[in-house]
C-alpha cells in the first residue's frame, strides 16, 4: 500500500471515529492519537524518504490536506459537543421565573407630607419661597398682627391652646406670613411665599377633629396684584391637587386678615357635582380660604397699603388627604399604623 493509500485510509478511519464520538475527552484522545507526534500521520510521513523526490511535493500536499481535514472535523465536532454541554448546563440552570422577587424594604413619605411636597413644588415653580416659622407663637403674631385684636369674635373660629396670656400654640401658619412681611425688603421685589406647617387648636380628637393638623398658607404682596390673580392661582392649585376636570367656585367669606375674603369650593370628586352625602348634596366641597390682604395687616407689618397689596390663601393638607383618598378618620394620620402609612405610594 502506497503512502497515498495509507493517507486516504487514515483519513477515512479518523473521520469515522470523530463523527461517532460523543464526549469531549474521547475527542481529545483522538486528536492526540491521530495527529500527535507518535500518531499514525507522523508515522506515515516518516515514509516520505522512501519515495522518489519528484513525488514528494504531491504526497506532502496530500498529507497536509488529510491533517487539515481531520483537524477541521475535530474542531467541528468539538464545537458541536461543547454546545451540547452548554445546552445541558443551561437546561439544568432553569429557574421558576414566576416565583416572587426578593423582598426590598421601602418606606413611604407620610401622605400629608406628600401633599405638602406637592404643593411646595407647584408654588416653587411659580417663583414662591417656602418659609417655616415657630410653632409656639406670641399672641401678637398669631392674632394681633393679623387684624385679630384681643376679644375679637373671630377668635372663636380658632379656639387656641395658650401657654401664658401672651404665648400660645399657633392656631394657623399665618404668623409666618406676618413675620416674613415685616422683614421683607420690598425694594428688592415682590414677596411670594408659602408656609407649610403644623398648627394646633383646642379640639377633642374624633373622626373629623384633631387638636393638631397641618396648614399651608400662601402670600403674595406686590404693587399690582389683583383678585383675578388670586382666582387664577387658586384654580391652578385646585387643578394640581384634584385634577383638570374640577371646577372651582369662589364664595364670600370672612377672615379678619383679608378683605374681600373668599372660600373656594371644588366640584365634589365623589359625585362630580351631582350632589351626594360627601358634599351634603351641594355638589361642591370647600377646600380653601383666601382673600386680598387687609390694609390693617399690611400697615401693621410696615407695608404701605396705598402702594402695595396682595392676596393670601390657606388650606389644610389633612382635609385634602381625607378628601382625595377617602380617609374617613383624621386620627389615622397621627396613629402611624404601618398598614395605613404604606398605602400611599409616592410614585405614579
Amino acid at each position, binding site marked *: 500500500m502506497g503512502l497515498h493509500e495509507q493517507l486516504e485510509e487514515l483519513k477515512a478511519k479518523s473521520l469515522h471515529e470523530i463523527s461517532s464520538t460523543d464526549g469531549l475527552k474521547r475527542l481529545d484522545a483522538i486528536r492526540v492519537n491521530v495527529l500527535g507526534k507518535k500518531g499514525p500521520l507522523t508515522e506515515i510521513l516518516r515514509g516520505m524518504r522512501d519515495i522518489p523526490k519528484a513525488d514528494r511535493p504531491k504526497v506532502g500536499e496530500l498529507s497536509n490536506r488529510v491533517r487539515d481535514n481531520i483537524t477541521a472535523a475535530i474542531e467541528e465536532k468539538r464545537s458541536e459537543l461543547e454546545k451540547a454541554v452548554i445546552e445541558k448546563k443551561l437546561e439544568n440552570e432553569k429557574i421558576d421565573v414566576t*416565583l416572587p422577587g*426578593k*423582598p426590598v*424594604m*421601602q*418606606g*413611604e*413619605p407620610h401622605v400629608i*407630607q406628600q401633599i405638602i*411636597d406637592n404643593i*411646595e413644588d407647584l*408654588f416653587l*415653580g411659580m*417663583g414662591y419661597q417656602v418659609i417655616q416659622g415657630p*410653632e*409656639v407663637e406670641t399672641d401678637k403674631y398669631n392674632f394681633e398682627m393679623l387684624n385679630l385684636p384681643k*376679644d*375679637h*369674635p*373671630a377668635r*372663636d373660629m380658632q379656639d387656641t*391652646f*395658650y*401657654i*401664658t396670656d401672651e*404665648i400660645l*400654640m399657633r392656631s394657623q401658619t399665618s404668623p409666618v406670613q406676618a413675620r416674613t412681611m415685616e422683614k421683607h425688603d420690598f425694594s428688592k421685589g*415682590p414677596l411670594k411665599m408659602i408656609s407649610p406647617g403644623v398648627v394646633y387648636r*383646642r*379640639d*377633642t380628637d374624633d373622626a373629623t377633629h384633631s*387638636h*393638631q393638623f397641618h396648614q399651608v398658607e400662601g402670600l403674595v404682596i*406686590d*404693587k399690582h*396684584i*389683583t*383678585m*383675578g*390673580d388670586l*382666582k*387664577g392661582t387658586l384654580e391652578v392649585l385646585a387643578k394640581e391637587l384634584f385634577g383638570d376636570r374640577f371646577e372651582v367656585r*369662589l*364664595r*364670600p*367669606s*370672612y377672615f379678619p386678615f383679608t*378683605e*374681600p*375674603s373668599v*372660600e373656594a369650593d371644588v366640584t365634589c370628586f365623589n359625585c362630580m357635582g351631582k350632589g351626594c352625602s360627601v358634599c*351634603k348634596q351641594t355638589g361642591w366641597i370647600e377646600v380653601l380660604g383666601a382673600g*386680598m390682604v387687609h*390694609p390693617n395687616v399690611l400697615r401693621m407689618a410696615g407695608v404701605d397699603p396705598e402702594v402695595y397689596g396682595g392676596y393670601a390663601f390657606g388650606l389644610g393638607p389633612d382635609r385634602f388627604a381625607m378628601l382625595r383618598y377617602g380617609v374617613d378618620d383624621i386620627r389615622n394620620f*397621627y*396613629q*402611624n*399604623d*404601618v398598614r395605613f*402609612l404604606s398605602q400611599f405610594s409616592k410614585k405614579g
Partner: protein
Amino acid sequence: MKVSYNWLKEYFDLDVDPKVLAEKIERTAVEVDEVTCAADGLKKIIVGYTLDVQPHPDSDHLNVCQVDVGEDEPIQIVCGAPNVAKGQYVIVAMHGARIKDNVKIKRSKMRGEQSNGMICALQEIGFEEKVVPKEYVNGIYVFPEDSHVKPGEPVYNYLGMDDNVIDTSVTPNRGDLFSMDGNAYEIGAIYDKVPVLHHRQLETVDQEIDIKDLLNIKIDAPEDVQAYQMGIVKHVKIEPSPFWLQVRLMTAGVRPINNVVDVTNYIMLKYGQPLHAFDYDKLTTKEIHVGYSPKQTKFVTLDGEERELRATDLMIKDGDKNIAMAGVMGGLETEISDQTKTVVIESAIFDPIKIRKTARYHVLHSEASMRFERGINPATVTDALNEALQLTAQFGQGEAVKDQLSPVDPNPQSVEVTLDLTRINHVLGTSLTVEEVTDILRRLQFTVQVSDEVFKVTVPARRWDIHIPADILEEIARIYGYDNLPSTLPTGSTTIGRLTTSQQVIRGIRELLQGSGLNQAMSYGLTTAEKAKMFMMQESEETKLDFPMSQDHAVLRMNLISGLLDDVAYNVARKEANVALYEQGRVFYRTADVDRPSEVEHLAGAITGSMVTKSWYDKEVPVDFYQLKGIVALLLHDLNLEESVSYVANQTRPEMHPGRTADIYLGDHVIGFIGQVHPQIEKQFKIPETYVFELDLQALLDAPKRIQHYEPISKYPAITRDVALLIDKEVSNTEIVAALKKKSNHHLEDIQLFDVYSGKHIPENKKSVAYTLTYRDKHNTLTEDEVNQEFEQAISELKSTFEVEIR
C-alpha cells in the same frame, strides 16, 4: 340663621326656586348649611277632629277615638297619648301615610280594636323637640282655635311645613344677617329688589300714665351701654300667642312659650334686636341699674341654672339686686309667668366684647348673646321696642304706657367711604365702568355720589361692618359676582422659587430613610408630662399648656422617640410586628427664665420586629443595633460632614439599654444617640425589643460640610493583608482600629472588619476578630517588602497596646 322663604316673600315678590335662591345667597353673601322643606317625604297627614273619645276596653292607657277626617264617615283610631280628648283638632296620619324617618302607617288592630291611622305628636311628623310647645312635648299636638283648620285638609300649610327654610351660617362680620330685615336687604341687592319693611307703630296706648312714675333707670356703666330703652305694657293677659306667630317661631327653630316671650323672640328674628321682658310686679325698687355688682356672686338664670358671677359680668339690676345678665340671659325670678300683669320690655345695645366674655365664660351662647357679640343695628332699637310693645298690648289685650324710658339713646351713624374707579379695577382685576359700580351700590341701597370716577359712598348704620374702601370693594366684588372675575396669574418682576439648602437636605434625608425601609411618621407635638421628658438630649424645663384639653396632650415634647414608641405600641397591639418608622419634627426646649421655648429640628427613628421579612428566599432576620446603625451611618455619611462622626458607648441614658447604647459625636459634640430601648421602658410602652435613634437635625444642618472635589483614581494596585486576633472582649473595635492606624502611614488606605466571633473554642472573656488592611501608594507600585514592614509595625503596635494573640 333659619331664613323662612315664606317670610321673605312678605318683603317683595320673590319668584325664585328656594334652592336657586340658596345657591345665590351662598355665592354672594354667606354659606348655606342646608335648605329644608319639612313636608318633604311626608304623605297623607291631615287634620282630624275628635268626635268621641272612649277608654279602650282592654287597656288602661289607650283610648278609642272617633275622628272626623273630612270624609263621610268618621274613622276609628286607637290613641295612647295622655292628652287626647273629645273635641280636639289633631294631626292624623292616615292609612298609607309616611311620617318622620319614612315610617309607614298602616291600618291595624290594637288589642282587638280597629285603628285606621295614628294621631300624631309634632315630633312624630319631624319637628325637633326643642321647638315643640312645652304642653305638647309629651303628647299629641292640638291645634288652637285660631288656627282655623278644617278636618281632612293636609296639615303642612297650617304648620308652615311647606315653607322652605334656608339655614345660613353667618360669619362674624355679618351680624346684620341675623335678622329677617337684614336678609331682605341682602336678597334685595342680589335680585335688584327693594324690600318693604313692615314695622308696626305703637298704637294701643294708655294716655294717662307717666312712665317715670312706674320706673326709673340708672346707667352705672355708660362705657358698656350704647343704647338702653324700656317700655311698659299694662293689664296683659298671658296666653299662648297667635297661631301664625307660633308657626313662624317653630319654623325659625324657636319654641313658642307665651304671647310676651314669643313677641320678644319674633322681634329679635325680624329686626335682629334681642329684647328682654321682665315681670314688673317682681321688681321691688322700680329702679333699674345697668352696671356691675361685684358683691353678689350667685345668680339663677331663666334656664334654672345657678351661675357664679364675676365682677366683670355686666348685669341688669333692680336696685342692687341682679335681675338679668345683660345681653346674655334673664333671671328666673323676674321671668314672665302666667300671673304676670305688667310687662317691662328692654331694648338695648351692649358692648360686644363684654357680652362675648360673659357668654364665653359661662358657656351661655344664647340667641341674644350671639347677636350682641356681632353688633346690633342702632337704627332700629326704638322701632323694635315699639313694635314689641304694640304686639304685646295687642296679643295680651293690654295697653302700653305712652312714653318709653331712654337713658341712652341709640346713635345710628352712617359711614362715608371714598374710593375711585381705578382702585376698584386695580384690586379686582376688572374693567368695571362708573355706571356698573354705581348700579351695584344702588342695589345695596348705599347712597353714592360720583365725580371724576370717584365714589363717595354713604353706608347706612344697618351695615356696621363696613368702614374702609376694602369693605366697599368686597361689596362690589360679591354683588358683581366672583364668577365674573377674570382668572389671571400675578405679573410683575420675576422671583426665584427654590428650596433653601436646609429644606433640600431635609428632603434628601427623608428620601434616604424611606429608601432604607423606614416609613415617615407624624406624631403629636403635645404629649404627657412624663413622655415629654424622656430620651432627653439636653437639660430643659418643660413647657405646659395653660388649660389642656386632656393630660395626654398637655406638655410640649422634648424628644421624638417617645411619640414613635407610642406608634410602635399602636402597631404591635394590632399584630403588626414589623415596624420601621422615622419622624422629622420639632422638639421644644426651654430655660427657666423664659416662657417661650426654643424649637429645634430633630430626626428620630424606631425599628422593631424584622426588616428582612420571612419569604421563600430569606429567613426572617430580627432587627438589631447594627441594622439601625447601618442606616444612621449611611445618613451621616451622606451629609458630607466636615468633622468626623464617632460612636461612644454610653451606659447612663436612663431610658436606654445600658449595654447597647452609643452616643453619636460630631467632632467633640454629642449630636444624638442610638441603641436599644431599656427593657423596662419597653415594658412600660408594651413593645418588644426596639431600637431607636434620635439626632439633633438642626446641628447637622448647621454643621460645616466638606467641599467636594474629585479624587483621582489611583492606577497603582492595592495590596491587602488579613489579620485575625484573639483579644479581650471588652476592647472595642474603635480601639483596635485606632491601634492599627497609630503607627501606619498614608499607605494604609482602609481597614475592614470582616469577622467577629465569641463562643465555642474561644476563651470566655475573649473574642476573635479579623480585619483586612488595604495598602496603596497613589504614585508608585508598593513592594511586598514595604507592605510587610508596615503591616508588621501595625501588628506590633497592637501587641504593645493590648494583650492580643495573633491567630
